[in-house]
């Protein structure tokens, strides 16, 4: 647990900045300052300059971080709920049900997910709700596998056997003994799912298929920065750096927690 402190601390700082930062700035993320278009840092009180239509880049980066993290947490929660339910049912029931449920997971693993998500975006319009529902619905597979394996080992543990021998009904055992003991592993894999989702969301937004203007996300900011990088390179570097920092911190915190809970 101790080892994950630094990345989790950095993440908390980023989250805090993204939540309260925009309120402290004189500029809104969608406010246009016609006097400064593609302004360099510190131009007219814009700490990070402005984008191609004169919007404050610091405000946009903070709001973009907020949107990216919000989508990621929402989508990862969808994946968490589906994955834990699927894995717990398969692991607890065992036998044929387990076999069939895990076969479905194996088959889904072989799907080209990014393309299925893009297909969903194309067919049902590009709404932010669909972005996270779609991503969440395809990112639960690893969680299901891990939770199933965990339930299988928990089922053989003495305290579960004791509860069974004492005549506790199955629902009570699952709720009282299995689910609480899944928490550690589930949290570790939740942390590892979030960067995956951040990656997918930024990827879609970069291509213009995810979050839509005037709302922004780190993917859109990287795309806008890439379009203007010959004039304002920092417009690419700043959101890119924030994105990479978030991904590195989430991955390393998740990996450390996973190793901590691994038996």
């Amino acid at each position, binding site marked *: 647990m101790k080892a994950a402190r630094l990345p989790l601390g950095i993440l908390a700082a980023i989250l805090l900045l993204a939540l309260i930062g925009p309120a402290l700035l004189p500029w809104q993320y969608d406010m246009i300052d016609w006097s400064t278009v593609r302004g360099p840092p510190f131009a007219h009180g814009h700490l990070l300059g402005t984008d191609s239509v004169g919007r404050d880049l610091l405000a946009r980066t903070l709001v973009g971080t907020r949107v990216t993290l919000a989508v990621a947490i929402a989508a990862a929660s969808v994946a968490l709920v589906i994955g834990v339910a699927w894995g717990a049912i398969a692991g607890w029931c065992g036998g044929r049900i387990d076999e069939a449920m895990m076969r479905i997971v194996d088959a889904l693993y072989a799907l080209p997910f990014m393309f299925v998500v893009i297909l969903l975006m194309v067919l049902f319009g590009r709404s932010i709700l669909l972005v996270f529902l779609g991503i969440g619905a395809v990112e639960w597979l690893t969680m299901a596998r891990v939770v199933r394996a965990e339930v299988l080992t928990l089922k053989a543990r003495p305290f579960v056997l004791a509860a069974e021998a004492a005549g506790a009904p199955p629902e009570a055992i699952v709720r009282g003994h299995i689910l609480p003991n899944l928490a550690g592993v589930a949290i570790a894999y939740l942390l590892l799912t979030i960067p995956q989702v951040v990656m997918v969301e930024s990827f879609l937004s970069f291509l213009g298929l995810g979050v839509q203007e005037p709302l922004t996300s780190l993917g859109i900011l990287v795309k806008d920065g*890439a379009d203007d990088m010959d004039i304002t390179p920092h417009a*690419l570097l700043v959101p890119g750096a924030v994105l990479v920092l978030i991904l590195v911190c989430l991955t390393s915190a998740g990996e450390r927690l996973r190793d901590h809970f691994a038996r």
Partner: protein
Amino acid sequence: MRALLLRRLLTALPTLLVVVILSFVLMRLAPGGPFDGERALDPATRAALEQAYGLDRPLPVQIGRYLGRVVQGDFGPSLVYRDFTVTDLVAQGLPVSLMLGGLALLLALAIGLGAGLAAAAQAGTAIDRAVMLGCTLLTALPSFVTGPLLVLVFGLWAGWLPVSGLGSAANLVLPVTALALPVAGAIGKLARAGLAAALWQDHVRTARARGLSPTTVLVRHALRPALLPVASYIGPAAAGLLTGAVVIETVFALPGLGRSFVQGALNRDYPLVLGVVTIYAGLIVLFNLAADLAYGWLDPRIRG
């Protein structure tokens, strides 16, 4: 080995079928149809059109017909690129994407295996930790960040390499690098872990006891079993490269399949998107089979 391949093929084909059918049904469920224009068609014309394109048949019949045409390599006409069939667009874009992805896979294997070997040979030292930190960073760098970054540094600031289009071999250097780096990081991690485990196996200890040099032990005895996790990663790596290629082709303006896919997606060109998803699914299935073959070659015990 043949039995293993046959079994894999038998599970791969249904997966492919599910992808195609799922995509097809989703497409039909989507609001809006091909004949919804600005002017409402009179019912008779609409019925005639729907009959001409077979849209009046029940859904299973339509799926069957579509599958029949796909098997013959016919994905239908593109809705946006008039005068082109989806098959034309695929035939134009696929070679570019395959070249890009193939070169990137080779580069990723070279960098990843090199990094893994270097780290495992120096296990526990600062070099090991630095190389592994580098690999973690590479896997966390999405290609849509590295692509523009490479353009900025090597194209715009240093002016060494061209940044878009497809004229000469120099045009490929930046896109192939941007595409390969995340995969290289993952391969490096896997190779390092595999080697570290292999170095404790009996046959490696025996080789060391026979007085062979550390390099010989590492390359001739430990490398082969250590490559197993790398081999099983080829399937996911191919999927990663195909997805990455979508972005890289857009960033570097390369006329590949990924770029037409994005254009198709932005323009709601259903047959194009459906066709490309089918092709990609087929490629991923192929790469998973290749990974199985590599696995059997590396570890004779599972040839069966």
